[in-house]
């Protein structure tokens, strides 16, 4: 078997560290010992493939999963999944979850004093198309308090989980909204030191996809790791 081209490593500040004390939950959960640098073998550059059997045709519309429309501001969130070399990632599985417009998750451990919405579960999934595009219809998630520090509030966000071509490109992240004043105070958002990398987490208002009389749109492109040149290409 020929040598395998690996994926480029994160540079300093381009990804969060495991131990980040401002986010207090990291202190008992971040590894204490140094990580062992893993070469990328066939075990890492391969990964699970998903197909149409894994997603329902309407799973990308979070506003039609119940009897009536959920409360809140309807939005369209779309973008492309690319790798750092600019190549599209087709048939990538994109899974999302979020709280409702009032800032409450339809989850048993969320006890925030905000109303549940019987018409909103807050989960969706789809595969990117041949050009790497995805598109969700949902409602804008509210801010909510958490106990990380005094008067701590999470900025509105949508959780994203993406499977690219190999298990080593697996990404779980969060999408934030432009201009949110809470971003400056959020340790999870600020855990990525590099400003340009951190701004990747903020969607852009998308006037072109905004639909008159119906919904605002946001654009959120997701950039997975890029592959090194193969030995043949060097």
């Amino acid at each position, binding site marked *: 078997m020929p040598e395998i081209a690996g994926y480029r490593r994160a540079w300093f500040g381009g990804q969060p560290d495991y131990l980040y004390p401002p986010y207090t939950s990291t202190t008992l959960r971040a590894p204490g*010992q140094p*990580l062992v640098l893993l070469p990328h073998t066939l075990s890492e550059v391969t990964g699970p493939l998903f197909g149409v059997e894994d997603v329902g045709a309407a799973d990308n519309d979070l506003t039609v999963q119940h009897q009536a429309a959920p409360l809140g501001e309807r939005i369209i969130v779309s973008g492309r999944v690319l790798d750092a070399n600019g190549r599209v990632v087709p048939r990538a599985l994109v899974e999302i979850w979020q709280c409702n417009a009032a800032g409450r998750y339809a989850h048993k451990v969320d006890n925030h004093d905000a109303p549940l919405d019987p018409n909103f579960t807050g*989960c969706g999934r789809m595969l990117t198309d041949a050009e790497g595009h995805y598109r969700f219809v949902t409602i804008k998630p509210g801010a909510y308090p958490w106990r990380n520090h005094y008067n701590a509030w999470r900025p509105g966000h949508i959780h994203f989980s993406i499977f690219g071509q190999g298990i080593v490109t697996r990404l779980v992240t969060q999408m934030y909204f432009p201009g949110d004043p809470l971003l400056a105070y959020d340790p999870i958002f600020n855990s990525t030191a590099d400003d340009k990398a951190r701004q990747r987490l903020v969607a852009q208002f998308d006037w072109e996809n905004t639909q008159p009389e119906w919904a605002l749109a946001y654009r959120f492109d997701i950039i997975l790791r890029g592959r090194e040149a193969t030995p043949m290409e060097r």
Partner: protein
Amino acid sequence: MSLIPTPSQTVGPYFSLGLDALNKTELCAPEAPGALTLSGQLLDGAGAPVADAVLEIWQAARSGRYAHPEDRRELPLEKDWKGFGRVPTDREGRFSFTTVKPGAVPGPAAQMQAPHIVVLVGMRGLLRHLMTRIYFPDEPANERDPILAMVPLARRPTLVAQPAGPKALRWNINLQGPDETVFFSY
């Protein structure tokens, strides 16, 4: 072209809302030839069970072949074999899944790797998921495994599952402490 990759963010405490639909704790049928159960417990730095974690499993089939187009070796693949599992922990931090022992797979510099399972671990408090591996007990190839060879000798046992009865293996994850599991920089 070189684009800046999107940073990782924690899965948070509510990931089951979005991820549960594709949970998979049986990578093969429990009655399939060679099927075994791998179970364990996930503990944090205070020794407390982590009840809100999710493990993702990636492994080759019994032949050593990955169900992925980049594995072009002509080795048999069981019908419907995907090699992927998604296993949340329960209230006691316990997890369990059913699978087969994979075959050996190629490693760096034309060396073969001992049979192993790739495990990703995500939870609230982890800004990036962890990556580790499960190796198998009584496996002579472990001695020559090029990845295990990179791990300090005293820490290697954290990557090797232990027998726990017929067709059962046990493997725990310790996030910190004297028995901290080896995690990889990927």
